[in-house]
């Protein structure tokens, strides 16, 4: 074999080997061979941030009752925690530049800008135009007008807001959240969430009358019955006012349900869903586009949309004693009097009308 042929052979061999060189290095001297990390202990908990914050306070300052004073501690980084043994008040201009650990009630006066998180072993009353980073309280939390929460708000009791508050990324309570007009949010979780400040009332429905087969209302040529009895409708679907039907419904278009109807089952729509006034779906409603619940209408279980949801006056989602979810990916608007049992989640803007 001549030198020229040898060189050519070497060149071809190098051409083949070149792409493999880095791979061989990674194979024999691995830098990235760990399995994708899965948190084996992860479980969903809306109040995770607040609970975790309280645990951190306890781990560095001890369990309550704690001694009063300013502590230098190390949380994620070196921090200061200011602990009080009784009720505490903060006025504008006197805000502490430390994490607040109040072992009593907390009152923040109008215009206070609290730059750090606060843990309260009692109730919290927050004045108008206050700004807080995050706050957890074992008692009730009352917010004045235009309060701005940067991250989260959590209560073991109730949360009640005045008009035009911003609840940050998460507001959670163990009993009830009452949100006033103009309040914006992303996630709210509580056994009962009431918009507009009016007390929750049971939503009454006029009976839809005789039970009618769903098939009577779908276009025959574009619909069929699935193996489990659910009706598949290939176009839009409309239910006349005052009708009562039974069974699950999957619609490849939009759905319009008239007033005073009852649907005993769940509903899926590839388009929009409009639920008329005083109508009720006993199961869940899942839709791809917008969903609108008319006045006093109700969805018995979950409401999920990939777009926006709007709940009119006294509309409700969920039922007492059960945590259900209103999940609206792009945004949600709720009118005064609307109630949600469980959670409202949106990746867009949530707003009380």
């Amino acid at each position, binding site marked *: 074999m001549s030198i020229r042929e040898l060189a050519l052979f070497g060149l071809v061999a190098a051409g083949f080997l070149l792409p493999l060189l880095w791979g061989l290095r990674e194979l024999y001297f691995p*830098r990235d061979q760990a399995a994708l990390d899965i948190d084996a202990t992860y479980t969903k908990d809306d109040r995770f941030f607040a609970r975790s914050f309280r645990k951190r306070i306890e781990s560095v300052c001890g369990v309550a009752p704690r001694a009063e004073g300013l502590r230098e501690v190390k949380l994620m980084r070196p921090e200061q925690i200011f602990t009080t043994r009784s009720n505490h008040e903060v006025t504008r201009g006197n805000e502490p530049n430390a994490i607040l650990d109040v072992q009593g009630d907390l009152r923040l006066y109008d215009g206070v800008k609290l730059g750090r998180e606060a843990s309260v072993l009692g109730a919290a009353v927050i004045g108008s135009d206050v700004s807080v980073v995050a706050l957890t309280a074992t008692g009730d939390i009352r917010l004045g007008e235009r309060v701005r929460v940067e991250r989260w708000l959590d209560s073991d009791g109730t949360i009640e807001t005045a008009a035009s508050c911003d609840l940050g990324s998460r507001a959670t309570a163990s009993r009830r959240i009452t949100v006033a007009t103009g309040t914006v949010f992303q996630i709210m979780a509580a056994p009962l969430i009431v918009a507009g400040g009016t007390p929750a009332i049971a939503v009454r429905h006029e009976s839809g009358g005789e039970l009618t087969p769903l098939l009577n209302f779908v276009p025959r040529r574009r619909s069929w019955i699935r193996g489990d009895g659910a009706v598949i409708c290939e176009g839009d679907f409309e239910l006349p006012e005052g009708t009562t039907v039974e069974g699950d419904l999957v619609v490849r278009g939009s759905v319009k349900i008239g007033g005073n109807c009852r649907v005993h089952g769940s509903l899926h729509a590839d388009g929009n869903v409009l639920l008329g006034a005083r109508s009720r779906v006993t199961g869940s409603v899942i839709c791809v586009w917008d969903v609108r619940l008319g006045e006093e209408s109700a969805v018995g279980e979950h409401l999920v949309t990939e777009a926006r949801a709007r709940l009119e006056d006294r509309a409700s989602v969920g039922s007492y004693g059960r945590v259900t979810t209103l999940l609206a990916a792009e945004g949600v608007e709720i009118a005064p009097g609307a109630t949600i049992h469980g959670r409202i989640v949106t990746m867009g803007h949530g707003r009380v009308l």
Partner: protein
Amino acid sequence: MLILIGKAYLVLATAVLVAYTIRHYIFALNRLFVRSRGGFQDLQDSQPPRVSVLIPMHNEEKVARNILDALLTCDYPPDRIEIIPIDDRSTDGTYEIVSEYAARDRRVRPLRRTEGIGGKPAALIDGIALTTGDILLVFDADYIPARGLLREIVAPFIDPEVGAVMGRVVPLNCGRNLLTRLLDLERSAGYQVDQQARHNLRLVPQYGGTVGGFRRSAFDAVGGFDPHVLAEDTDLTFRLTLGGWKVVYSNRCECYEEVPERWTTRVRQIRRWAIGHTQCFFRHIGRVFRAPGLRFWERIDGAMLLGIYMIAPLLLLALLDSLFLFLLGEMNLTSSFLVLVAVLTYNTVGNFASFFEIGTAVLLDGHRQRIHLLPFNILNFALSIVVVTAALIGHARNVITKRTTVWQKTERYRQATPQPEAKK
């Protein structure tokens, strides 16, 4: 005439390969540049449906404790779950382990099979007969579900459209050797890109027979499993899809599994998948184009999913065909500059479409260095072509001679309670 047939076949094979290439790129680009479709991951329900978890086991003493421990510590309400390990004629200590757990916890209700057809579909049929749940979840015995996984898998079933849910499989032993590292890349692409893109594009995500579940009423309505089908998961995917249900993929439902550490085990696994998938191809391909309620692109994707294992013999035959034509002097491709450009472009872009998917998946998973192993996937690719082709020929022979194709179990390698390998 023979030359004409040869050329026509080559054109057909090229057209099919180009179609699959386009599909790969659409999926990868969808994952890179399009926001994922919202799922049900943020859903919570204090009253989730009653579930039955089925775990087919055949000689699984190395892994049985891990999965039972994991399931018993999950956060699913204890009064709404039953765990049914199905001991399918094990000859090791599997049944003793399962019995020990059953004695300790009422949620575990084991079944012991000592006769009948072997294999996972047959075991599942017997297991399902014992279940009382509305939702049936299936895990292979080498899986280790995280504490909150069951709730995540069950969440999409609030949608009456959903018949089955599939989660993401993550290799736990990925750092063992070249094979496990290549399989890790393959799994990443298959789930992070392929399945998620099909979910995003409302096509046909596949129920994979583990880390997933199906609705009991839907399962009954489509007639349950067929014990003679080796890929009962693909079969169920299509029977549900053709029956009016949808299969959804949930990327957040991640679960560790053990991938084969030996090439011989891998070969057996591919053989089983290839034969099972091909059985499904002949069962369902006609109905994919005729069934009501499917969108145009669902039919196309469904057909391509069914035909995925036919690509290997198609490609191998095309290579032989082109060699045959070349030897006969009929492959004067290089005489045309445009054809040459087309061939080179396809070699650069087309043949590596699936590799582009893998690269995309690695990027999305936040890994970096492991992508250097990508060229070694040529080995995996070449092996698959040969094994799948051989498997399909063998299966065709079995069909003609009316011999039963038997289920071949995947070997386990686990020694002790596993932990994800430390990051380096």
